[in-house]
């Protein structure tokens, strides 16, 4: 039986890839955890910091565990991935944007205050 080969790399390099991915993920998880629990970063910046760490860790796992971008041309896997990414961005940020606007314009108890504060309209 011919073994199924997702990439053309030798086995030792594949093992090294998994190890690299694992160690990097552990480090990134640990740094994010400590940044939140030990409050090493100003509280208004820590959210953005851990999101950046998460994006890096997701990239690490996509490359070392899921071997994204290592296929030969045409790169259909990568194409579908980027399409998914576009849908994800539209879905998540679109939802937040719309709901933010609805809250701003529709919440009865806050509406008056918004009009007074932001729109320069006074009673």
């Amino acid at each position, binding site marked *: 039986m011919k073994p199924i080969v997702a990439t053309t790399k030798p086995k030792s390099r594949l093992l090294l890839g998994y190890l690299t991915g694992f160690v990097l993920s552990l480090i990134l998880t640990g740094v994010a955890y400590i940044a*939140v629990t030990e409050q090493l970063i100003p509280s208004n910046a820590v959210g953005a910091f851990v999101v950046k760490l998460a994006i890096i860790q997701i990239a690490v796992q996509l490359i070392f565990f899921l071997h994204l971008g290592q296929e030969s041309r045409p790169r259909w896997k990568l194409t*579908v991935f980027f399409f998914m990414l576009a849908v994800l961005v539209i879905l*998540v940020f679109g939802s937040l944007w719309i709901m933010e606007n609805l809250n701003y314009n529709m919440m009865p108890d806050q509406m008056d205050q918004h009009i007074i504060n932001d729109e320069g309209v006074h009673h």
Partner: protein
Amino acid sequence: MNEAVITTHQNDKTYFGFWTYLMTDIVLFATLFATYAVLKNGVAHGPSSHQIIDLPFVLIETILLLTSSFMSGLALLAARAGKRQLTAALLVIVFGLGAGFVGMELSEFAKLASEGHGWQVSAFLSAFFTLVGTHGLHITAGLLWIIVLGMQIGRFGLSSSVMRRLTLFTMFWHFLDVVWIAIFTIVYLMGSLA
């Protein structure tokens, strides 16, 4: 083309199809993340996220799942090297770590429910249980998959179809760890900030 080449071509199609499924599954999770983000502050009379999150507990869950994901990669390498015993042993470890993760998650859910913080209390808690629970269901499905794979390895050895299924399983398992990074960061780490 000889038989091996034809098989490889068919497998490539299967892997691509499964990859496409995983990408659509991310869209499912993206809708749940968007819902969670929109409803996060809708706590009604229930608790806010920082009041119910036990970070050290979730860190252990995270490390269990990460190690499980790594071990599934090693299991695939062992299988490719034709080491049947090692593959089976590694899959047992993958299963144990995954089961530990689900067990911890269920105990977290049970604790919240017993404290009166169930899914029906507020929009925030509904979104929380739906997002985290959907991931937990995927993990549970993966655990069943491991059991089936284990039986197939026992019965058929590392045949080409078993190898294909094992490869698909590791893709699924790595993918679930990627989703967990987002849950760990957005729901737990950021949610623990007051």
